[in-house]
């Protein structure tokens, strides 16, 4: 299919030359000069610069800022990684290779993760104080934007279990109005991206067993945290 089929051959050649479709020189059709005059005109510089400046601003707002992370070398439960966004704490992980942790955070939040001391200092300090028994509660916002509404409601319910107390998966399920969802609650807590701060360790099996804990040394770490908090191991 040749587009210029219905144009006379001579005129087609001149359009081809004008468009750069052919190397054969030919004088452009008269209409071409008018089209050039009309369409070569671009936006006025002030229109263009305004549009480009507003574009940059809009993109800055839309793009997720970087996430900062750092390591807490020595805590009673081993080394920990913490990561924070501009909105709050996004990740706490027990001993993991740095690359693995960084990649997981970057994939979850779709933002670059940068290792940095200063932005993470508050989170690291509070975490260490808590684990050393010098702090009763966290004053850290958590940023759970990448989680589903269900996961968020489960973690918020877990956050409401006070220090020194325990709850069960079934109780959390009822508290969020999904009484049949104990198993899904267990799963959401098992994937808690900010353990210790969102105290999923305070949630036990319905029989009061420790059930499981995905961080640190598993159930031993869960038991250690509950002991640190002086928990009575009977669900309220």
């Amino acid at each position, binding site marked *: *299919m*040749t*587009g*210029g*089929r*219905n*144009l006379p051959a001579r*005129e*087609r050649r001149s*359009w081809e030359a*004008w*468009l*750069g*479709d052919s190397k054969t020189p030919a004088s452009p*059709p*008269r*209409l071409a000069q*008018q*089209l050039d*005059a*009309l*369409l*070569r*005109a*671009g*936006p*006025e510089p002030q*229109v*263009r610069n*305004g*549009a*480009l400046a*507003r*574009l*940059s601003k*809009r*993109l800055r707002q*839309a*793009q*997720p800022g970087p996430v900062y992370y750092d390591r807490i070398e020595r805590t009673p439960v081993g080394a920990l990684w913490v990561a924070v966004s501009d909105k709050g704490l996004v990740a706490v992980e027990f001993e993991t290779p740095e690359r693995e942790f960084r990649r997981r955070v970057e994939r979850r939040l*779709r933002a670059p993760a940068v290792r940095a001391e200063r932005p993470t200092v508050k989170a690291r300090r509070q975490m260490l104080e808590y684990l050393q028994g010098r702090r009763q509660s966290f004053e850290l916002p958590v940023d759970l934007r990448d989680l589903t509404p269900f996961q968020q409601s489960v973690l918020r319910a877990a956050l409401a279990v006070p220090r020194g107390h325990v709850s069960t998966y079934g109780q959390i399920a009822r508290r969020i109005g999904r009484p049949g969802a104990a198993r899904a609650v267990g799963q959401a807590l098992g994937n808690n991206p900010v353990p210790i701060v969102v105290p999923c360790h305070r949630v036990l099996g319905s029989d009061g067993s420790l059930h499981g804990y995905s961080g640190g040394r598993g159930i031993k770490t869960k038991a250690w945290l509950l002991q640190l908090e002086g928990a009575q191991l009977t669900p309220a």
Partner: protein
Amino acid sequence: MPALDVEALVREYARPIHAYLWRLTGDAQVAEDCLQDTFLRAVRAAASGTQVAQPRAWLYAVATNSARDHARKASRRLQREQLLDSDLVDRSDAPPEAAARSDQLRRVADAVRRLPPKQRAALLMRKYQELDYDEVAAALDCSPATARANVYQALRRLRAWLSDEEEA
């Protein structure tokens, strides 16, 4: 295939895409809105790890679609407004008119605006944005032969519409 690097795309293509949209839509505000839509789409595509083989053609495709959507919304709005008010929206500040200093140029401007959207987009991309036919084809989601045909059909139409005046 690489994921999109939005910063690099903005650096390299924000200006030509803006000029393209400005020419395509003939309206500075619509061009700016479409420019933002286009690069916000790029941000979302980059965030979801979408792989793009021809970033430039991809941007032109998104920009062209965005302009088309705007035109549809505007024509619906215009229809509603015309029901309320028989006065047409004053478009005297539309950019092509700013360049059209003579009646003749104004007639060419009107003719270009009357082109079917796909032909207008193909002509602008090929001639004024200097895309090759493979890229125009990728942007318009058609074959390179069809992209080329669209460009020539645009010229044929313009010529047919304007030849009477030329001969006169």
